[in-house]
């Protein structure tokens, strides 16, 4: 299990290789990469800034990651979340889950992303071409996505 909050970009291939090296018991690796889209609410986006709560963010993500390991049989997992100023096309977040079987790896990655969207203390401020900035509102649909895991039966 590993959690990193960092300004630097990441390389998916290198992260997966490092995470799975030496494991002969992994059959399935799922990665999710969130990237900055070039528009927001129909308007062009020039850049965004991600703020976090140092200390709490890492702890909150580690808690969620540990919960994923109790729900699904995972051999390894990794969560990287970038902070600072990002531009369209840039990577924001990487989630990697590795399991013997694909359904566990898929379910755990989706679970982690749903929770990252709704529980981990990150805030996005978007800037349009004119430099006007606006904080992103939380999405109702993300809260719904997270709630579907509450009461879920565990092993998937």
């Amino acid at each position, binding site marked *: 299990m590993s959690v990193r909050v960092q300004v630097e970009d990441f390389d998916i291939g290198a992260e997966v290789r490092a995470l799975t090296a030496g494991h002969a018991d992994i059959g399935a690796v799922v990665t999710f990469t969130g990237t900055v889209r070039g528009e927001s609410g129909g308007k062009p986006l020039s850049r965004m800034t991600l703020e*976090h709560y140092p200390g709490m963010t890492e*702890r909150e993500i580690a808690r969620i990651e540990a919960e994923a390991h109790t729900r699904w049989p995972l051999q390894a997992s990794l969560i990287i*979340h970038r902070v600072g100023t990002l531009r369209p096309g840039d990577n924001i977040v990487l989630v990697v889950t590795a399991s013997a079987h694909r359904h566990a790896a898929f379910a755990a990655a989706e679970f982690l*992303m749903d929770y*990252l*969207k709704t529980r981990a203390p*990150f*805030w996005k401020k978007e800037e349009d071409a004119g430099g006007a900035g606006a*904080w992103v509102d*939380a999405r109702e649909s993300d809260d719904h996505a997270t709630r579907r895991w509450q009461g879920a039966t565990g092993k998937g």
Partner: protein
Amino acid sequence: MSVKIRYFAWVREKTGKAEEDLDLPAEVKTGADLIAWLKDRGPEYAEAFARPEVIRVAVNQQHVKATASLAGAREIAFFPPVTGG
């Protein structure tokens, strides 16, 4: 007793500060009490906490309800709903 208060995102922008150390009076027992008390400290606080129902509270870096007790709090944070990922 002095407690560290931290503000994030637009709460930070509106209060004009990322954090401060405050001595809380005895009648401030919950996050909601603290919000009400902070709103009296000046117009920037009044604006930051104009809609307390959208403000999230963390005590000692854990999410809590605004009605939860602040007993034992060393660090209290206020922020909007999170928008990560």
